[in-house]
C-alpha cells in the first residue's frame, strides 16, 4: 500500500513537471535556442563580412563578430595547441555566458508567475479540482525552475558550441586549414562537464531566491514583481537610515551581499563562485579556472550555502501554505 502511494505520488510529480514544461517551454527551450542561433548567425555574418573585406582591402582585417574567428584561425594555422584550446574554451564560454544570462531572466520571471498567473486567470480552480497536493504543485515548479531549465540551458550551450565548430571547420576548410585539431581538443568538453556539474550546486544556492519569489507569487493579489523587488530595497534603505541615526543596524555590505542579494540574485548561475585572489574580475577564458572542481567543493562547504538552503526551504514551505489557503477567487 505504501509503495503504491509513493509511486503514484512520484508519477503525479512527473506529470506536474511535464505540465510546467508544456506551459513554459517557450522560455526554457526556445529562448535559449534562439539566442544560441543568434550567436551562430552573427558568426556566419562575421565570416562573410571578413571574407568580403579581405577581398576588398587585403589580409589585415580583424573579424570579431560572434565567435572570435581571427584567434581561432591563427591558432589553428600555427598549431599552437594551448592558444587554440583557449580560443575554443572562449567559444564554449560565450554560449554558456549568454545562455546563463537568458536563463536567469527566464527563471526569475517564471517563478514570479508560477503561483500567480493561474490565480489571475482563475485556472487555479481547474488545477485545484484535481487530486494533487499543493506541496507537489509548488515543488514541481521549483524543480522546473532550478533543474529542468538549467539542464536545457547547458544542453543548448553544448549544441551551440558544436554547431559553431561545424561552421568554423567549414570555414577553415575553405582556407585549406585542417579543422581536425578543433575536434580533438578535450578541454572544451571538460568545461562543459563542469558547467553540467554546476547545475545542482547553483540549484542549492538559488533556493533563497526561489523561495522568495514563490512566496510573493503565491501570496499577493497583484504585482508580485514589485513586492519581491521593492521589499528588500526599501528594507535596505530603512536599514541605512537607521544607521544614520546611530542606532544599531545591519552593516550595509552584509545586508546587500548576504540578505537582499541572496533573496533576489542567487538565481544567477555560478553566483556562488567566490571571488579569486585577484578579485572578481572576469577576464574571459583565462579565468576559466575559477569554474573548477575545487571551487564547487568549496561552495558546498560555505556556511552561506547551507544557511541559504534552510532559508529557502522555509520560504518554499511558506509558499506551499499560501498556495493551499489563499482564497480570493
Amino acid at each position, binding site marked *: 500500500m505504501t509503495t503504491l502511494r509513493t509511486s503514484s505520488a512520484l508519477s503525479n510529480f512527473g*506529470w*506536474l513537471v*511535464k*505540465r510546467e514544461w508544456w506551459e513554459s517551454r517557450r522560455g526554457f527551450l526556445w529562448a535559449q535556442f534562439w539566442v544560441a542561433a543568434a550567436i551562430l548567425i552573427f558568426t556566419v555574418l562575421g565570416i562573410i563580412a571578413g571574407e568580403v573585406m579581405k577581398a576588398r582591402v587585403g589580409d589585415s582585417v580583424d573579424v570579431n563578430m560572434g565567435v572570435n574567428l581571427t584567434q581561432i584561425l591563427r591558432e589553428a594555422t600555427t598549431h599552437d595547441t594551448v592558444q587554440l584550446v583557449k580560443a575554443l574554451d572562449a567559444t564554449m564560454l560565450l554560449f554558456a555566458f549568454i545562455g546563463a544570462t537568458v536563463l536567469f531572466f527566464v527563471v526569475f520571471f517564471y517563478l514570479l508567475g508560477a503561483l500567480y498567473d493561474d490565480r489571475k486567470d482563475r485556472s487555479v480552480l*481547474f488545477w*485545484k479540482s484535481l487530486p494533487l497536493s499543493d506541496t507537489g504543485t509548488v515543488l514541481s515548479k521549483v524543480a522546473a525552475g532550478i533543474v529542468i531549465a538549467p539542464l536545457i540551458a547547458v544542453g543548448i550551450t553544448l549544441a551551440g558550441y558544436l554547431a559553431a565548430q561545424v561552421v568554423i571547420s567549414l570555414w577553415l576548410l575553405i582556407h585549406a586549414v585542417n579543422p581536425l585539431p578543433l575536434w580533438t581538443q578535450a578541454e572544451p568538453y571538460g568545461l562543459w562537464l563542469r558547467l553540467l556539474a554546476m547545475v545542482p550546486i547553483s540549484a542549492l544556492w538559488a533556493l533563497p531566491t526561489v523561495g522568495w519569489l514563490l512566496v510573493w507569487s503565491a501570496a499577493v493579489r497583484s504585482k508580485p514583481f514589485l513586492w519581491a523587488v521593492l521589499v528588500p530595497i526599501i528594507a535596505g534603505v530603512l536599514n541605512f537610515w537607521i544607521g544614520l541615526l546611530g542606532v544599531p543596524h545591519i552593516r550595509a555590505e552584509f545586508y546587500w551581499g548576504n540578505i537582499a542579494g541572496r533573496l533576489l540574485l542567487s538565481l544567477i548561475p555560478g553566483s556562488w563562485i567566490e571571488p579569486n585572489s585577484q578579485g572578481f574580475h572576469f577576464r574571459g577564458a583565462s579565468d576559466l579556472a575559477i569554474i573548477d572542481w575545487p571551487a564547487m567543493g568549496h561552495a558546498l562547504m560555505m556556511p552561506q550555502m547551507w544557511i541559504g538552503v534552510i532559508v529557502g526551504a522555509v520560504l518554499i514551505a511558506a509558499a506551499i501554505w499560501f498556495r493551499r489557503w489563499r482564497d480570493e477567487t
Partner: protein
Amino acid sequence: MSAASDNAVYDVDANAPATPGAVIHAAGLTKRYGNTAALDRADFEVSAGRIVGLIGPNGAGKTTALKAILGLTDFEGELSVLGLDPRKQRPALMRQVCFIADVATLPRWITVSEAVDFVAGVHPRFDRARCQRFLARTKLQPRQKVRQMSKGMIVQLHLAIVMAIDARLLVLDEPTLGLDILYRKQFYQSLLEDYFDENKTILVTTHQVEEIEHILTDLMFIRDGKVVLSTDMDALGERFAEVLVNADRAEAARALKPLDERQVFGKGIFLFDGVPRAQLEQLGEVRRPSVADLFVATMKGTYA
C-alpha cells in the same frame, strides 16, 4: 437582519446528526471575512443520488459554501464531505469530487490533448476512452489550444473531462454563465443522459433557476449565510402552493398569512407555505409555484 431572520420560516434542524450515507453534512458552518459573515452557522445535508440546486442572491454565501465543501477555504463549524474533512484531506477528497467553478477556468495555454493526458496521468478515476467519446461529439481538435476556443467550447472540453471521471460528487458553480442557450441546454442534457446516476450527486448553483428547475431533485435556498430552505422537489409541491385569487377573496387569502402577494391582470397571486390544500382551493385556482417565484418571495428585501 431581523427581518431576514423572520423570513427564515423554513426549519432546518441544526442538531440533526449526520445521516449515514450523507454526501455532505454541515452543521454550524461559519466563514467570516473581516466583520462580515459569508456563512453564518449554516446547516445542511446532501444525500447520495440527488441533484441539488443551491440558490441564493449575490453575496448570500453560495460560492463560499462551495469553497468550504471543496476545501478551498478555511471555516468554523462542522463539515464533512464523503466522510472526509475538506481542510485536512483535500487530495483524497478530490479523487471523489469534481468541480467546474465558473466557465472558462481551463488554462489558456493548454491543448485538448495535453489536458486529457494530464488528467489521465494524475486522476486514478479518469476514463480516457470515455472522454474521447465525449470529445468526438464536439468540434474540438486534439491540438487546439484553449485560447483559440469560444466559451462554449471551453465548457464542452471541461465537461468531457469531468464526465469521464467516476466521481461521487460533482460541484458546479454557475457552470453555464455567459453561454448561449444551445450550449446551456446541451450542458445539462449531457449531464443527465451520460453522467448522472443513483451513485452520483450533483450540487449546482446558478442564477438561471428556470433552466435547471426540472432537473433538480432537491432545492436549497441560502440567504445571508444561512440555509433558509432545504427540501426535495416533491415535498416542495406539497408544502408550497400558489393560488390565483379574485379581488373579492383577497382579504380571506391575506388572513392565511401568505408568504407573498402580487397582482397580475387584476387578480392576486398568493404564495402559501404549509396551508392545507382544501382550504386554499376555496380561494381560487391552486398551482405549484415555480422555483423562481418561490425564490423571489423568500428573498424579498434582501437588497433593501
